[in-house]
């Protein structure tokens, strides 16, 4: 039980560090730690498949993509655009307002205060695979088309324009 609160505190702390650090590379590294704490949360929920996928897709693929783009663009702290303090304060206040609204709404609807029961086996690869390939087979296949389209789009967008150069 206390593991949840420790990991939740770490996740919030590193998420805050992600958005408040000046250096973009440090920001990405803090984001890695945030994703890792979220992976620990999945393990605590006994969602082992999601934990592994989160680990591989987010920490492996997406973060490496971010780091590659940063390397490609050769960023440093001086190139970092800075917003005026007024806008920053207003943004922070707006975020806090959103949080207060959400928490107030959740207090009104009073979600059940029961414990999250450990349905020990729904998160295992075997059971998720059965659901995925029975009920969700069509969305699964369509998502492959989405990934193909994204791949072609990314290559086309990032390619240097040969004719212009």
């Amino acid at each position, binding site marked *: *039980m206390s*593991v*949840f609160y420790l990991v*939740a505190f770490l*996740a*919030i702390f590193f*998420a805050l560090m*992600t*958005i408040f650090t000046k250096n973009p590379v440090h*920001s*990405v590294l803090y984001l890695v730690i945030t994703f890792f704490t*979220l992976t620990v949360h*999945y393990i*605590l*929920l*006994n*969602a082992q498949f*999601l934990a592994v*996928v989160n680990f591989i*897709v*987010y920490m492996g693929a*997406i973060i490496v993509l*971010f780091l590659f*783009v940063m390397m*490609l663009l050769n960023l440093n702290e001086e*190139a970092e*655009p*800075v*917003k005026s303090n007024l806008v*920053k304060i*207003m*943004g*922070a206040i*707006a*975020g*806090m307002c959103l*949080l207060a609204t*959400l*928490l107030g709404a*959740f207090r009104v609807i009073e979600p059940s*205060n*029961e*414990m*999250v*029961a*450990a*349905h*020990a086996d*729904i*998160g295992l690869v075997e059971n*998720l695979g059965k*659901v995925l390939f029975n*009920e969700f087979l069509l969305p699964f296949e369509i*998502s492959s088309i*989405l990934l193909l*389209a*994204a791949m072609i*789009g*990314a290559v086309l*967008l990032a390619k240097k324009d040969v004719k212009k150069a």
Partner: protein
Amino acid sequence: MGNIVEQIQGVPLNHYIIFCSIIFAIGVTGVLIRRNVIIIMMSIELMLNSVNLLLAAFSAYRGDPSGQVFVFFVMALAAAEVAVGLAIIIMVYRNTKSLDIESLSKLRW
């Protein structure tokens, strides 16, 4: 594994909702206060992740695997979104030589 399962017995669903709301609000704040396009994308990832965790928590709470399958689809979508988004950022950087989101304000026309 039994030890881990015992660990989560004591966490109410409420606390998952509060935790995920906080992470989501941090993501929104990040979008609002930063001007670097890459960091704005990272904040969006943060928001997607918080929603994913809440879906998984509800799925474990209801004992229904559909929620976790949905998280899987959201992850596939996030991967596609990041690939296209970063390609667009690289293109913008080539044209404007800056990562400032204000450099795109011409799009307002």
